[in-house]
């Protein structure tokens, strides 16, 4: 840790917003036995199992980055976010967030970030959102003029200006989430930690949240780390992706890199002048063949070779080459990580 501190001193201007070093969290989980007898036995003899939720992960996030944090359910994403927000102590390892040790929960630290959890609400249920915003203004001591401006901008951006006087419990899930987001952004945090901010929302509401985050990022240069199971969120917002599985880091790099690394095949969509021939199976896996249309999945390295072979033989009206959907690639990354984990 000493070396890291010294490094921070020298390069404080370019200091990472988040720096995690070998961060590890182990939970002790009570193993309840089956049946009544088991429950009684559990009263005096408890069996525990150690669960390593996060396993020695290290990464650094620079100011202004928008990073997606991906992994299947139970991979350790939320636990990591909780450690970075200072809610949970790590079992071992170090972290510095905004130059603070998060779990010391310094007042100044808490004024500079927001944690938004898609399934938890922070607003007062029985009050209009506007009252909760006022409360935030006092808690974070935001100057009135700045508060008014930020609030005006955000409610307009999210199209909820008319709803702030309505009790939060009467809002739809999408409207409520927008209000949560506004509450989280009011004090102008330098760091936003978002845990599935679009969960359960329809496509329109999802897009509105994405747009708000994007605009806010371009205006304020806020740093964001978000988890999501919707690849739309990731594609719309993030250039860099961290993938964890079983608590360990599997991938850290640009989003395009993940497609290159794990997307081994491409989807070639062909439109023939006449009917699509029925011998396309030798080029690759035929996904669809209907009239003049045929979609073939082809190994990445062989795309140009196969395309010219097809062109030699047939007259084509149109060709498009696509990467497989990101969902498919991510699923594959998760699957490979699972196999590695099981083997080890």
């Amino acid at each position, binding site marked *: 840790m000493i070396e890291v501190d010294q490094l921070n001193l020298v390069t404080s201007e370019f200091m990472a917003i988040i720096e995690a070093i070998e961060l590890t969290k182990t*939970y002790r989980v009570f193993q309840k036995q089956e049946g009544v007898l088991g429950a009684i036995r559990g009263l005096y003899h408890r069996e525990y199992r150690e669960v390593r939720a996060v396993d020695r992960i290290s990464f650094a996030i620079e100011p202004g980055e928008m990073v997606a944090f991906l992994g299947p359910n139970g991979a350790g994403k939320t636990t990591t976010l*909780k450690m970075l927000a200072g809610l949970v102590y790590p079992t071992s390892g170090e972290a510095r967030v905004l130059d603070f040790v998060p779990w010391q929960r310094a007042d100044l630290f808490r004024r500079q970030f927001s944690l938004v959890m898609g399934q938890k609400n922070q607003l007062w249920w*029985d*009050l209009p959102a506007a009252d909760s915003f006022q409360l935030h203004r006092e808690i974070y001591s935001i100057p009135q003029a700045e508060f008014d401006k930020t609030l005006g901008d955000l409610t307009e951006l999210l199209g909820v200006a008319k709803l702030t006087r309505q009790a939060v419990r009467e809002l739809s899930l999408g409207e409520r989430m927008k209000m949560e987001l506004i509450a989280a952004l009011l004090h*102008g945090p330098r760091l936003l930690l978002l845990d599935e901010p679009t969960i359960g929302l329809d496509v329109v509401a999802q897009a509105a949240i994405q747009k708000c985050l994007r605009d806010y990022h371009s205006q*304020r240069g806020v740093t964001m780390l978000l988890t999501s199971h919707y690849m739309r969120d990731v594609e719309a917002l993030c250039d860099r992706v961290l993938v964890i599985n079983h608590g360990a880091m599997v991938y850290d790099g640009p989003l395009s890199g993940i497609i290159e690394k794990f997307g081994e095949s491409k989807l070639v969509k062909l439109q023939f002048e006449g009917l699509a021939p029925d011998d396309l199976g030798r080029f690759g896996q035929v996904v669809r063949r209907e009239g003049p249309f045929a979609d073939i999945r082809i190994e990445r390295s062989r795309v140009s070779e196969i395309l010219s072979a097809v062109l030699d033989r047939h007259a084509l009206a149109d060709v498009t080459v696509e990467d497989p959907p990101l969902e498919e690639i991510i699923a594959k990354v998760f699957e490979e990580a699972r196999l590695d984990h099981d083997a080890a």
Partner: protein
Amino acid sequence: MTPPDGLAAPSAPAPSSAATLAVEPLPRHAPPRGPIATLKKHTKILRVSLSERMTYRSDFLLGTILRFLPLVTTILLWKSIYESSGASELAGFRYREMIAYLLLTHISRMFSSMPGLAAGIARDIREGTLKRYLIQPVDMIAYLLTYRVAHKLAYITMSIIPYVALFVVCRGYFDGIPDALTLAAYALSLVLSFLVGFYFEASVGMVGFWFLEVTSLLYIVMTLNFFISGHMLPLDLLPSPWSTILKALPFQYMAYFPAVVFLRKITGWNLVLHLLLELTWAVVFMVLSRGLYRLGLKRYSAYGG
């Protein structure tokens, strides 16, 4: 581990001046210091809490009126107890004083009872809503105290008319209004009973850090408190070791003590001593609730959050 170009470098020409804000060493809102800033913040919490309380006005009014109904049966019960015993005094209380005492414990409880406080803390812990006190720059206990003050202010404001009406109707049970000094001591004892009640229940709520399910514990504590605070009957009425023991415990300050101050049963230096003791208990429970909160947070942060 290198971030993509362009995004990482804070020195790159920013699309707007705001981008440079992200790397400012100091936040734009320095935390306000001093008691005035804190007071201002909590005044706002108070105002917002107050308007939340007012949301359920009709429920509130109905609750207040229904609260008085058992009084009628209590008065009739004590009337028959005094008549059948044939004594004019029970443990130093005449019949009229007894009824006055029971009416006054209602006032005491109006200050010292904290419906839902302990259960609310336990629920915040269990359901994880406690997070917001850890993430936002606000202290949970101070926040809850402000919220409770708002709650009490709303309650007292709204029930002042029915209470005044009740005491006018029942004025025959009182020997007039006590002198100014007694009234001041009474007011002080009520404010302190609010603090004792608040920090006591807050301490009970902190048990939620160690046990997931606290409903039955809370039920036992609250039922017991109803009796040992003297809400049901004056503590003097109990057989000798018990009344002495209960009067040494802090619970008497939540109902018994303010009532007997008003009835001028405790006066002079004895009154001063008890007011100091009441203050001491408020401080003891404050320290206890803070200590438990600290310990609880350690555990919470280690096991889950």
